[in-house]
């Protein structure tokens, strides 16, 4: 029951946030569901983080009171938006949006349904696995679920867990939005249950697929949208592969899929913002970027990427837009985690502290190894099927407009930040040293890359797939078109 209650809470709160703050003309029920989960996970997690940062213990009473207060504030604009949706202007926008969704022939409709069914079955496998499997990935147990368990017992992450050197292995400065979300079943049921906490994680993948499907449907049509949904849902690293260790799958209580959700949502909102197709898309992008930064450290470089994308992609008000979007994200991050985390011990994986010219220069010698490993990962059929080859091929034959080129910049900055991290990292571990000594890896960085490259690319893969399908030539000829 705790899991169902947590999902319902996120759905209701997220739907309210979505309805009150954002208007998405032409959105269908699948997109509405995905967006409700998106803002529910991000919103509930952020509110819990803000409570903790303010010194208020995260208990069911305090969290529900805070969410209730916000819901009361949002109820009026949500109601007004619902009423306005019946108004003429929004109906016009919805009609324009539905023009991108032409009627399908019977064959096309069958293909659309088949692809959606495949996506749903793939997601069902991940969701069931998430509930059935006990947590087993070392990172999931010692970081994300550990913090969720501490929250369930102590109601805060500002205690000994974050300050004692004995708990350094939990990565004390890592942003903990996911543990706050994983703690929701325990808060609502009154007891800690690892299966329920882990079971919630797979629903991030459901939101990811639904949000991407909706955005693609509005812009590229139902068939490419269904293809995108089936493609993303059936990615081996999301649906069923438990490796590379320490894993990444939707069922594994790792933060990689949640980050992929927020990255994808932010990127798709940026496209809407740059093309001016709906109101407040900038705010949505900023919020999603903030959620991403609160989910993993890897979400922080996105802020720079988004700022650059706006500077290069916007046709007017470039600086204002970039500062606005990045400012919203940075403010949310700082208030909810960034400021209090400064008092926690920094680890050897504290990359900003190692970002020095001398380290970068020394890391240049690692570039060939990094490029080779990256290349091998991109063409690995076992991990990606044909994903990256197909993305590149679709981009090559597609038309990349100004706004969509900005997304390429965003993805490029993100990838560059990962390469830079591998160049400057001083990471090592007994396992890495044993692997090097045993001839299983050339050096500790090669070992690190073998563990993490797949997970890092997973952060970007759904957005890259969406971008490729947005840019691809029209795959379906509209009904009635000739020639």
């Amino acid at each position, binding site marked *: 029951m705790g899991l169902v209650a947590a999902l319902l809470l996120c759905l209701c709160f997220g739907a309210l946030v979505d309805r009150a703050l954002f208007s998405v003309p032409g959105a269908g029920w699948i997109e509405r569901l995905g967006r409700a989960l998106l803002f529910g996970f991000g919103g509930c997690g952020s509110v819990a983080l803000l409570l903790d940062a303010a010194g208020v213990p995260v208990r069911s009473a305090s969290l529900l009171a805070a969410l209730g207060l916000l819901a009361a504030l949002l109820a009026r604009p949500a109601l007004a938006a619902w009423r306005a949706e019946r108004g003429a202007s929004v109906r016009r926008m919805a009609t324009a949006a539905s023009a991108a969704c032409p009627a399908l022939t019977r064959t096309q409709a069958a293909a659309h349904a088949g*692809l959606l069914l*495949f996506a749903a079955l793939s997601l069902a*496998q991940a969701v*069931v*696995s998430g509930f*059935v*499997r*006990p947590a*087993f*990935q*070392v990172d999931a*147990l*010692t970081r994300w*679920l*550990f913090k969720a*368990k*501490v929250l369930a*017992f*102590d109601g805060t992450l500002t205690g000994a867990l974050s300050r004692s050197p004995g*708990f350094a*292995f939990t990565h004390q400065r890592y942003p903990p939005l996911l543990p706050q979300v994983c703690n929701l079943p325990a808060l609502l049921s009154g007891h800690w249950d690892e299966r329920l906490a882990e079971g919630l994680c797979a629903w991030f993948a459901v939101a990811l697929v639904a949000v991407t499907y909706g955005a693609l449907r509005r812009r590229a049509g139902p068939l*490419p949208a269904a*293809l995108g949904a*089936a*493609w993303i849902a*059936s990615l*081996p690293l999301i*649906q*069923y*592969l*438990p*490796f590379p*260790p*320490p*894993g990444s799958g939707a069922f594994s209580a790792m933060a990689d899929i949640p980050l992929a959700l927020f990255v994808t949502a932010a990127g798709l909102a940026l496209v809407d913002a740059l093309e001016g197709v709906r109101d407040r898309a900038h705010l949505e992008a900023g919020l999603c970027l903030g959620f991403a930064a609160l989910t993993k450290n890897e979400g922080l470089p996105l802020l720079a990427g988004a700022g650059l994308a706006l500077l290069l992609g916007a046709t007017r008000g470039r600086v204002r837009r970039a500062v606005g979007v990045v400012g919203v994200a940075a403010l949310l991050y700082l208030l909810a985690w960034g400021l209090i985390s400064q008092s926690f011990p920094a680890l050897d994986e504290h990359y900003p502290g190692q970002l020095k010219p001398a380290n970068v220069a020394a890391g240049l010698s690692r570039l060939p190894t990094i490029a080779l490993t990256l290349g091998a990962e991109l063409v690995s*059929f*076992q991990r990606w*099927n*044909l*994903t990256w080859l*197909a993305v590149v*091929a*679709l981009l090559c*034959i*597609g038309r990349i407009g100004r706004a969509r080129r900005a997304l390429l910049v965003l993805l490029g900055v993100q990838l560059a930040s990962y390469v830079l991290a591998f160049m400057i990292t001083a990471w090592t571990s*007994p*396992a890495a040293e*044993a692997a090097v000594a045993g001839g299983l890896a050339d050096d500790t960085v090669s070992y690190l890359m073998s563990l993490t490259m797949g997970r890092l690319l997973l952060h970007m893969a759904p957005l890259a797939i969406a971008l490729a399908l947005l840019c*691809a*030539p*029209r*795959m379906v*000829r509209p009904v009635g078109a000739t020639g």
Partner: protein
Amino acid sequence: MDRETAAQAIAMLVMLAALARWLPRGEEGDSFGRGDPWRALAIDQSLLDEPPGSHDGAAALRAMFRRDGSIARWTGLLEQVARLQARTGDGDVIQIRGVSRNEFWTLAYDLYPAHVVGRTVEEGGSSRDAVLPEAHWVLTLVGPKATAALERGPAPENSARAGTTPDGTTPAGTTPEETGRSGGASGESDSVGSKHAEPPR
């Protein structure tokens, strides 16, 4: 081939590649990863078929990716963890001996809100480390088969839970002093007194 047809061909290939993974499993090392989704389903099915209280599935999953992973080792550890979870709580200190760093960290999660202490193998620790005075319980991985043994430590028991065992009986025959004297774990006796303890696997 025009661009539209090329896009359609690429889309077809993407979906065919995804469907190819559902083909029957190929030989070991199959670079197309055929049968991987079925393998995942089989793991889930075996977990669903497990009898209540069994730790075999969780142990198999935890052992899957560890270089020092062994299902028997994790089964023994998880059985002792379950026993400890039933009788420890906030403020209790559990010393863990003879485990690797990753195992220590994982057990720290399993046993929270009890606090774990001890030296890992990577830090020079072993199953023969001296028992720490603050330990309420001592969990040791010993012997050639790496079985897990549980002893009561020298620290006074928390009164709220004093004298209880998972099956509700009162432990007898073991005093903190006795176990404290044992120093390095013998591994032959399960701590709470052989009357109440199941032998580690």
